[in-house]
């Protein structure tokens, strides 16, 4: 629960005005179920390593994702209700957990995500060159994963860390102007500061104090991949999936 309160705290920082979402009523601005899956797959490229109901329609989620009445064809839901929001936030947590699990290996996951070079290229896109340079250097051997998994925040200067966050947000969204357009403050500044402050003031002390937070349990809170995974969770939880 605490983590949710933290998320709310961030939401309050980053957002000023209320945007009342609607769903199939404004279909062109809210993605349909297949598009939601496309977007999530794009943001969690390692998610394909593990089956997730967050990426496929099943009997349980089809209604909340906007299924239609079989007799009339009319949408059952015309707006994202609390159940959709809950599904989405739970899915973010699950996909973050899957991603961390995929990275918690010391061997290249052969045959599951292309060649080793392709996998390293994907990780470089996800995390940016700063993370790769600081954590792994030029090592493209199988030690690549072990080095990345063990890499800690303390290995980065503040300037380097700012670049890491910039790279991560670029992967998720795009350039600084786009972040501003989506209400994340000028050049994403509000978001950067909120994420960093949140980590220093609340997340790290809480984790060191023994806070259990589901998918991130048993991970080292100083590990870069945990911090970035949790950042991704926070940032995407703020996103209203409206384009």
């Amino acid at each position, binding site marked *: 629960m605490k983590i949710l309160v933290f998320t709310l705290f961030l939401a309050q920082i980053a957002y000023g005005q*209320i945007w009342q979402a609607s769903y199939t009523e404004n279909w*062109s601005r809210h993605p349909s179920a297949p598009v939601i899956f496309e977007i999530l797959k794009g943001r969690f490229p390692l998610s394909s390593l593990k089956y997730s109901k967050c990426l496929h329609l099943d009997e349980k989620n089809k209604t909340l994702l906007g299924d239609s009445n079989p007799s009339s064809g009319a949408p059952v839901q015309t707006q994202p209700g609390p159940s959709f929001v809950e599904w989405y936030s739970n899915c973010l947590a699950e996909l973050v957990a899957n991603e961390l699990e995929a990275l918690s290996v010391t061997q290249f996951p052969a045959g599951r995500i292309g060649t080793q070079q392709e996998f390293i290229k994907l990780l470089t896109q996800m995390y940016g060159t700063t993370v790769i340079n600081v954590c792994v250097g030029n090592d493209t051997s199988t030690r690549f994963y072990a080095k990345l998994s063990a890499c800690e925040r303390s290995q980065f200067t503040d300037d380097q860390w700012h670049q890491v966050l910039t790279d991560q947000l670029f992967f998720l969204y795009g350039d600084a102007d786009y972040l501003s357009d989506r209400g994340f403050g000028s050049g994403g500044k509000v978001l950067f500061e909120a994420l960093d402050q949140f980590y220093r003031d609340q997340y790290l002390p809480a984790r060191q104090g023994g806070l259990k937070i589901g998918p991130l349990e048993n991970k080292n809170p100083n590990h870069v991949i945990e911090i970035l995974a949790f950042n991704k969770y926070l940032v995407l939880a703020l996103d209203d999936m409206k384009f």
Partner: protein
Amino acid sequence: MKMLFGLIFFSSVTMASPSLTSRMTRLSFQLRGSLLSFDEKKELALVSPQDEAKFIEQKTNEYLNSNRLSDAFLYWQLERFKLKTFILSDEAEKETQLDLKDSFANLVTDILNQNLSWDQFLLSKNYRLVPLALKPKSREDVRARVSDFDFFSLLVPSLPREGVQLAKRPSDPSELQALNLSFPDSESRVAGVLTTPRFLRKYTTTDVNKNRRRAAQVYRIFLCDTMFPAIPEDANRKSKYLSQVFAIHETATEEQLKASLEIGHGAQESCRGCHSKLDPLGVLFQSHTTVLNPVSSTGSLKIPRATETFQTPVLSVADLAKTLVAQPEYEACQIRWFWNQFIGKDIDLKDEKLELLKREFNRVQRRTKDFIKVIASQPEFFNPPAPIEASSFAAVKPLLKRCDSCHESESYMFSEDVPHFATLFEDSKSDESTISWLLKMRTRLNLPSSDTHKMPQNFTHWTEADLTAVKSWINSGAKDDAGTQWLEPQ
């Protein structure tokens, strides 16, 4: 928890001129149903400001010709026609994809891919038939799955019967070999999507609906005239019209019920508004069950207008198609679909803009891709909608629908004629009635929890934030969409 995430889902997009990335993201999302790839985001950084317009035009053309748009377009049309079937698993997904490649899907994708006139939805005489991908699994399945070959078999007896069902299911939809079937322009018994098995199979006829469902879809899809069945299709939700239709006590005899039905259903003014349109058009479809009947029927098309009512006999389904595409209501309705789909219902389509788009629609000879390009070039395409004020009617409308969902249920149904709160301003019989209901809402929302008249009574779907939003709206004067204040602010 719900309240928490409800709050997280707030946003503010208030920039006056969106960045190139924002514009490209929207273009990509709207035309391809996906966001920009990582490499595309990097590509944007290399575009100089003076080249932005050219770059967007180039990308628009690229996206218009992408397979992604073609797939998305089919999905949108399945939504528009309410023919969408959901994919439930990987295995079912394959089956659905295969079954999607029927004559309806082929016609829809041809209209886009070949940049045909939008009118071909109604006027086309060309079909690409595909065999059924799967063996029917049960007797019900046999009835539900009618192959394209079976459907046209009475019109074209020479169609090969072996095409009805494949001996072996292909692994890829592209392996399904389609058979081209073209009818001459003079063929009056076929008319685009209206004579496809997918359309007629979905909107079946029964002794009760007598093809009115089909007629209602024609009005909804092509004229934006949406009508709802008085007898609800969902047994758990009862319509407020039910008491009008069956205006008789539940212990009545069968004879009394029949008499009541004849008198009550269709005779009342509120019923006649729809039935005077549906009944004569439904007759047109009367000869079609699940197979296209070679015997053509005649009907009548009625379109009420402000000054006079347009009514004309339609001698065949092809005649109906030709008549429809010539109507101004059709033109406006179809343009509105493009607007809603690519720009968004949340951005108002003003009259002068509609007139401009009508001219453009006809200038490009109603060609589909060309008109999408016209729409994507409108300034509204890239501009985010104005943020909704917390206390505006637009902000609380989705919440008021929750009121409707309870008040429509049986326990409240017959106590008093409760209006639909989400459409209160549109549906209300008089200003006095609107104000009276708003006052009732305000009183009951503000009652203490212990009061049995307190609303809402079922808190399952409500959070404190939701209640605060509704109270804030009503206490600040209950403004409607036009900004008219209906109550004195408190």
